[in-house]
C-alpha cells in the first residue's frame, strides 16, 4: 500500500494529486491557491495542501510521480527547433532557456522542494499519464482510451487499449500534426488567448454556420486511416510558440480578428469569424469521430475514455457518445494537463502494487472552506454576515427570488468546471439573468452560454438525455426539450443545446440540497450554474477568496458553508 503524490507542471494548469492506498484523496490545481490563472509553475503549494489535507508529511510519501519525461521532451523540442531552422531563430533562445533552466531539472526540483529523496521521484510518459487519469478512475474494466491534446513528449494523439489497470499503446499521431494545436492556432486567429480562449471558440461555433469546409479541407486533411494531417504552412507552432498560426492561414480564411474588439454579429466580418469557429468545430468533431471509431475497431471495447485538453470539448464529446458506437463514454473532469498529475500518481501507485481506485464519484477533491474564518473576517469588514441552520433552503429561496448567489460550500472542485461547490447560482428562466451575470460579474463575450445544473432524476423532464458517465462532470451537452426552452431561457444556447450537469446527492450533496429545496418551493429543480470567479481570475478556493469576490462583484448573496451574507438594497 503506497502514498503517492502526482505532479503536473511547466506548461499550463499545474496540479498535484494525492493517492493513498490506491484511492484518490485530494487533487488540487495550483492556480486555485496561487490565484494566478492557469498557473504553470511547480505546484508546491498545491502539493503541500494535498499532504496537509491527508495529515501526511513529505517523508511519508513512497513516491512522487511527474506526468511527463523531461528528457524525451527536450529531445522533441531540439529536433523540431533544428528541423525548422532558420524559422525557429526567435523561439530557440527562449525554448532552450525553458528546457535547460527548469524543465529538465524538474525531478530534482521536486525532490528539493518537497524534501523527498531523489530516488523516490519518478516520471511517466505524458500521454500515458493522461490515459491513466481517465481509465483508472472510470467505471470500465475494458475500454478504448483516446488521448488528444496539443503535444506531450512527441505524441499529439494516442489510442490505448485499457484493461483493468493496464494500458497498451496501439497507435499515435505525432507532433507537429496536432488537433490541440489546430484548435489553439484558430483560437489565436479568432483573437482569443491560447490555452484560455478555446471555450470561447466552442461557444462562438453556435453563432455561425460550417460553410468554410473548402478552405478547411486544405488546413487539415483526413488521412483515411482515421487520422489527420495539418497543412503545416498554416501554422507556426513548430517555430514560434507565441503566434500559433502562419500567413497561409490568413490567405485561406482572411485576416485574423483583432483581439479585444467587441463582438457584433451585425458586422459581416464577425459573422465570418463565427463561421470559422463553426467550421472548426464541425471538422474537429468529424476527426474525433473517426479516431473514436478507429479506437473501437482496434480494441473491440464497448466503452471509451477520453483525455487531453481536447476532451474538454463538450460538443464533440456529445457527438462521440451519440455516433461512435460506444455504449458508454467517460471524461475525467480535469481532462487537460492538470489531470496528468492524477494519472501519474495512479500509475505509480499501481506500480507499487496498489489496487485500481473505485470510479470517480465526485470532483470535490480540493480543500474545504472555513466558515468560521470567513465569519471573523466578514465581521472585521463590517459585512452583515450570519450563520444559518439550512443554507440550502436559503440559497433556494434567493435563487427562486431571482437573486444571484455565490455558493461556496464543501471541498472545491478538481478541474475547470464549477460543479456546485464554488458556483454562482441563479434562476435559469430569464435571459436577463444571463445579461446581468455577464455585465456585473463575468464580463464575458455575449455569445458564451451559461450551463444548467439539474436534479439527476429530473433530467429527462428538461433535456433529451439521461444522466450518464459524463453529465455529473459537465463534459457533454444535450438538447433542451422544445417545451422547456422558455423555462430554461438563460441556459439554452443558440443551437438549442446546454452543457448540463446532472446532480445526484452522493456526488454534489450541497447543490443537490439546493435543487431539492427549489423543487419543494414549486420551482423547476434546475439552476444556472457558472464558476465563482471574476473575469481573468481562477475559481474561488478559500474563505478569503470568497470574501474578496464579494467585495469586488455585485452578487446578491454569498454562502460560505453555513455563513450567509446578503446585500441590502
Amino acid at each position, binding site marked *: 500500500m503506497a502514498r503517492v503524490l502526482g505532479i503536473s507542471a511547466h506548461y499550463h494548469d499545474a496540479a498535484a494529486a494525492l493517492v493513498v492506498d490506491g484511492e484518490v484523496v485530494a487533487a488540487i490545481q495550483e492556480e486555485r491557491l496561487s490565484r*494566478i490563472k492557469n498557473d504553470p509553475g511547480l505546484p508546491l503549494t498545491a502539493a503541500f495542501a494535498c499532504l496537509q489535507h491527508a495529515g501526511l508529511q513529505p517523508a511519508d510519501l513512497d513516491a512522487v510521480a511527474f506526468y511527463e519525461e523531461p528528457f524525451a521532451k527536450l529531445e522533441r523540442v531540439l529536433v523540431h527547433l533544428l528541423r525548422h531552422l532558420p524559422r525557429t531563430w526567435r523561439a530557440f533562445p527562449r525554448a532552450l532557456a525553458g528546457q535547460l533552466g527548469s524543465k529538465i531539472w524538474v525531478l530534482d526540483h521536486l525532490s528539493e522542494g518537497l524534501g523527498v529523496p531523489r530516488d523516490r521521484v519518478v516520471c511517466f510518459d505524458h500521454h500515458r499519464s493522461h490515459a491513466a487519469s481517465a481509465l483508472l478512475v472510470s467505471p470500465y474494466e475494458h475500454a478504448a482510451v483516446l488521448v488528444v491534446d496539443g503535444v506531450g513528449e512527441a505524441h499529439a494523439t494516442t489510442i490505448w487499449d485499457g484493461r483493468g489497470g493496464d494500458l497498451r499503446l496501439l497507435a499515435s499521431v505525432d507532433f507537429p500534426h496536432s488537433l490541440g494545436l489546430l484548435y489553439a492556432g484558430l483560437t489565436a486567429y479568432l483573437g482569443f488567448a491560447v490555452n484560455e480562449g478555446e471555450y470561447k471558440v466552442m461557444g462562438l461555433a453556435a453563432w455561425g454556420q460550417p460553410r468554410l469546409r473548402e478552405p478547411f479541407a486544405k488546413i487539415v486533411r483526413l488521412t483515411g486511416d482515421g487520422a489527420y494531417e495539418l497543412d503545416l504552412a498554416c501554422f507556426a507552432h513548430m517555430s514560434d510558440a507565441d503566434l500559433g498560426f502562419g500567413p497561409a492561414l490568413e490567405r485561406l480564411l482572411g485576416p485574423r480578428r483583432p483581439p479585444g474588439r467587441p463582438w457584433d454579429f451585425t458586422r459581416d466580418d464577425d459573422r465570418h469569424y463565427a463561421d470559422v469557429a463553426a467550421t472548426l468545430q464541425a471538422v474537429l468533431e468529424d476527426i474525433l469521430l473517426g479516431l473514436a471509431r478507429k479506437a473501437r475497431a482496434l480494441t473491440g471495447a464497448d466503452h471509451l475514455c477520453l483525455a487531453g485538453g481536447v476532451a474538454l470539448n463538450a460538443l464533440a464529446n456529445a457527438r462521440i457518445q451519440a455516433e461512435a458506437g460506444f455504449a458508454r463514454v467517460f471524461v475525467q473532469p480535469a481532462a487537460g494537463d492538470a489531470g496528468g498529475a492524477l494519472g501519474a500518481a495512479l500509475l505509480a501507485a499501481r506500480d507499487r502494487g496498489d489496487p485500481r481506485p473505485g470510479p470517480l464519484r465526485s470532483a470535490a477533491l480540493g480543500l474545504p472552506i472555513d466558515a468560521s474564518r470567513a465569519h471573523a473576517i466578514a465581521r472585521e469588514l463590517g459585512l452583515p454576515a450570519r450563520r444559518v441552520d439550512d443554507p440550502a433552503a436559503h440559497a433556494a429561496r434567493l435563487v427562486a427570488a431571482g437573486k444571484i448567489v455565490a455558493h461556496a460550500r464543501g471541498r472545491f472542485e478538481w478541474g475547470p468546471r464549477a460543479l456546485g461547490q464554488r458556483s454562482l447560482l441563479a434562476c435559469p428562466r430569464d435571459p436577463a439573468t444571463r445579461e446581468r451575470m455577464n455585465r456585473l460579474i463575468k464580463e464575458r463575450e455575449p455569445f458564451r452560454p451559461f450551463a444548467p445544473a439539474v436534479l439527476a432524476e429530473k433530467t429527462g423532464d428538461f433535456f433529451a438525455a439521461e444522466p450518464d458517465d459524463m453529465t455529473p462532470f459537465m463534459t457533454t451537452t444535450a438538447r433542451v426539450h422544445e417545451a422547456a426552452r422558455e423555462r430554461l431561457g438563460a441556459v439554452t444556447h443558440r443551437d438549442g443545446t446546454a452543457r448540463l450537469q446532472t446532480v445526484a446527492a452522493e456526488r454534489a450533496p450541497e447543490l443537490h440540497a439546493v435543487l431539492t429545496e427549489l423543487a419543494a418551493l414549486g420551482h423547476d429543480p434546475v439552476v444556472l450554474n457558472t464558476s465563482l470567479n471574476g473575469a481573468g481570475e481562477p475559481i474561488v478556493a478559500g474563505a478569503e477568496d470568497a470574501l474578496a469576490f464579494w467585495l469586488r462583484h455585485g452578487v446578491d448573496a454569498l454562502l460560505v458553508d453555513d455563513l450567509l451574507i446578503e446585500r441590502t438594497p
Partner: protein
Amino acid sequence: MSRDLTGFLARLLSPLAWRGPTRSARKLYAFALAEQGSMLDLRLAAARTPSPARAAAYLRHADDEARHAQMFARRAARLAGEAARPFVLPPLRADSERLFELLGEREFLAFVHVGEERARRQFEAYVTWFKGQARDQDAALFETILGDERRHGRYTRELLFELAGDLEARRALRRVGRWELGRRWLRAGRFVAERVYLVLTLALYVLAAPLALLVRLVRPIRPGLRAEGSRILPE
C-alpha cells in the same frame, strides 16, 4: 531610493515616458500589471495572516489594487487604440512574488508601506506633469488613485508599528530598504545576463545549422496514424 530622488526622476523622465499614446499605453499597462501583482500578494497575505482584522485590511487593499489595475488597463487600451498604428495590449496576467511567505508579515507590511509611499511620490509628480500638459484625463486618473495610495501608506505604517512596536518596525523598514537594493542589483544582473545569453544561444544556433540537415534526413515528419505494433507499455 531616497524620497527626493523618486519624485525627481519621475519629473525628469515624464516627457519621455508619456510621449505619445503608444508609450503612454505601455507605461499604463505596466502600472496595471504592477497593481494586479500587488493585489495577488495582498490576497495571499489575507489568507496567511492569523489575524482576521489584518486579513480584512489586506482584502480591502487588494480590492483597491484590483480596481486600480482595471482603471490603468482601460486607459491603456484606449490609448493603444488611439496610437498612430493602433495595437492591442495582452490580457493582464501578473505574477505573484509571494512576498508574505518570503519576508514574513512584518517585512511584508514594511515592503508594502515603502512601495505605496514611492508610488505616491511618483504619482504626484505625474499629476503635476499631466496638468501642465493639459492632459486632464490622465491627471484625473492618477489623482483618483493617489487618494487610495495615501490611505494605503498610512494604514500599512500604522499596522506595522502596531504589530512590531516602534523599534522593530523601524528595523523592518531598514531591512526592507536593504532587501530592495539587493533585488535591484539582481535585476540588473539578470538584465545583462539575458542579453549575453541571447547572443550566445544565437551563436550556438548558427553553429548547429548543419545538424538541421541531418535532422531532416534522419527524423522526417511522419503524418498519419502510426501503429505501435507490439510496443507495449509498461514494459
